[in-house]
């Protein structure tokens, strides 16, 4: 390329932020190729869940006959499925709520109360992100849960689940609260509000975007947790969806491929819908502080 051409390019780039029509088209083509790679497997499962059984056996991408009965079938015929789904729902809800609560008040305390030792806490949280805690701690967590009588207890899973993303959640909330001027809380305190009221009335609205981020991060992590549930729960009916799905021998009996796909869609969809609805707040939250944390 000649020097003049480069000059022209640079000028054009400053004007339109895009080098040329051809370049732009190629750019969109490449991006959409990646998008296709991302969406294709998901589309395939979605189609599988509405394929008739013979179509599922043949394996063609687009079914010749649609069959929407698999969704009803899995709820009526797979006895443990509603139980497993319910287990997943309450364990995830419990973990997400507790983690979010802990992370919000801890993030507030680390920035706006700053007790002695706060720096040490932050360092410990950061180190825990780099150490393979999840893998190594499983030996001792089994012992703890055994001691508490929580082996084979589904609700007992909430305790270790809270810590799955606790450190990162606290660090995210900490960087969110750093964006809120200290004076805002101070003036509320001088007006007679305690820490709780200052946090609830002034803090929460200011860190809303970060709240969306940690909600989603914790939901995703608890909804799909495998290792702890596999290790701590022996009884099929007491397990959560991910362990059941991972163990399902696809293609056989009640787990015929379209049935498995229907279950899969049921389990995956809530997260995707929630994310799509909250994406504006989620991205704002990510940009504001989550990525810095």
């Amino acid at each position, binding site marked *: 390329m000649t020097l003049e051409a*480069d*000059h022209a390019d640079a000028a054009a780039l400053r004007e339109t932020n895009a080098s040329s029509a051809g370049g732009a088209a190629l750019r969109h083509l490449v991006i959409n190729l990646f998008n296709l790679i991302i969406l294709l497997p998901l589309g395939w499962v979605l189609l599988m869940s509405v394929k008739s059984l013979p179509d599922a056996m043949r394996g063609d991408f687009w079914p010749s006959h649609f069959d929407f009965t698999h969704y009803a079938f899995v709820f009526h015929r797979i006895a443990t499925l509603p139980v497993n789904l319910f287990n997943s729902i309450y364990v995830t809800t419990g973990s997400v709520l507790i983690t979010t609560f802990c992370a919000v008040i801890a993030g507030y305390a680390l920035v706006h109360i700053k007790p002695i030792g706060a720096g040490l806490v932050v360092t410990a949280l950061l180190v825990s992100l780099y150490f393979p805690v999840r893998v190594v701690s499983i030996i001792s967590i089994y012992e703890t849960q055994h001691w508490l009588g929580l082996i084979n207890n589904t609700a007992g899973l909430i305790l270790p689940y809270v810590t799955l993303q606790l450190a990162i959640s606290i660090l995210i909330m900490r960087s969110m609260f750093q964006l809120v001027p200290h004076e805002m809380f101070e003036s509320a305190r001088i007006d007679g509000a305690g820490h709780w009221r200052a946090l609830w009335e002034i803090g929460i609205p200011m860190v809303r975007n970060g709240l969306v981020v940690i909600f989603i991060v914790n939901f995703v992590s608890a909804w799909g947790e495998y290792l702890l549930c596999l290790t701590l729960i022996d009884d099929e009916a007491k397990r959560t969806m991910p362990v059941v799905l991972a163990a399902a021998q696809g293609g056989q009996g009640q787990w015929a491929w379209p049935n498995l796909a229907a279950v899969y869609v049921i389990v995956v969809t809530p997260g995707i819908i929630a994310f799509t609805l909250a994406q504006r707040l989620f991205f704002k939250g990510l940009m504001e502080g989550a990525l810095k944390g």
Partner: protein
Amino acid sequence: MAQTIAESEAKLGAGAGGGEAGLLRRGVNEWLFLAPALAFFIGYQVWPIFRVLWLSFTDFQFLSEKPAHWVWLDNYAQALRDPLMWTSLGRAALFTAMFLPGTIILPLLLAILVDRVGSQRLATLYRVILLIPAVIPSTLIFVLWKWMYNYQSGPINHLLVNTFGLFTLQNAPQWLGGTALTLPAIAVMEVWWGLGYHTIFFIAGLAAIPKELPDAARIDGANEWQVFWHVTRPQLAPIMMILVVLRFGSAMAVIDEYLIFGGFNRASPTYTWTIFMYDQAFKLGLWRQGYAAAIGMIGAIAMMCVMAALIWVFRPKG
């Protein structure tokens, strides 16, 4: 420090109480907000690590009636003499080497492309699509790909056999289940999973670069590659460092994928140090958790050393 003390004294003066009792109450109240988080953090993350460290010096067996004995470094010595320890660490490193480059370079490329999309509406659409895999929980990703890779009915082999005719039903590739293809297959899945999430990471980094910098370089006659190498890349270095170190850590400590795709066959390339530890701790004999703890600690220390080295290599220059 002096400033902090002065500040807190000023705050104390503003508060209603004061005096010794007030100071004590204030100290307790301050920690009250951290207490719930710390209770969980210490109970389920800090304590377990130290407990496992302690166990690694004993001959503790979970199912044994006999009390455990302190055996000093015997577990470590035995593990380090066991060829399986080294093989399993090597397998984890091999997987990391397959996974890490793809999961950094592809998102970087994609981020540069998406960053230049002019239309706000399209840029948002692209970001949403890219992040969809990131909001699918881990195990559900694995279940999806277990199915994609299925020997008989998976769509990948369907494409290879029926559509392209590259293989027959007899010699189609066996992707999962501890074959030589298993680690690359998992690496591809992981790159797919992290693609969008890492791209968003890099987009955030690109957005923070002042637009004058690359433009000035272009005016000075730099081509797009030079602009990337000399302007964009150094600006992205901190983000890249965090990603490389964190992904190195998560790749070395993969366990769920190996449990789901590989099982406990010692000859399988998925039998890494994490599975070795899990096997000893929860599957074999009387659950030799003392020995398993030593395996876990060796694996953790080995990868922490490399991570420290990585941080040192990528340290901000000057």
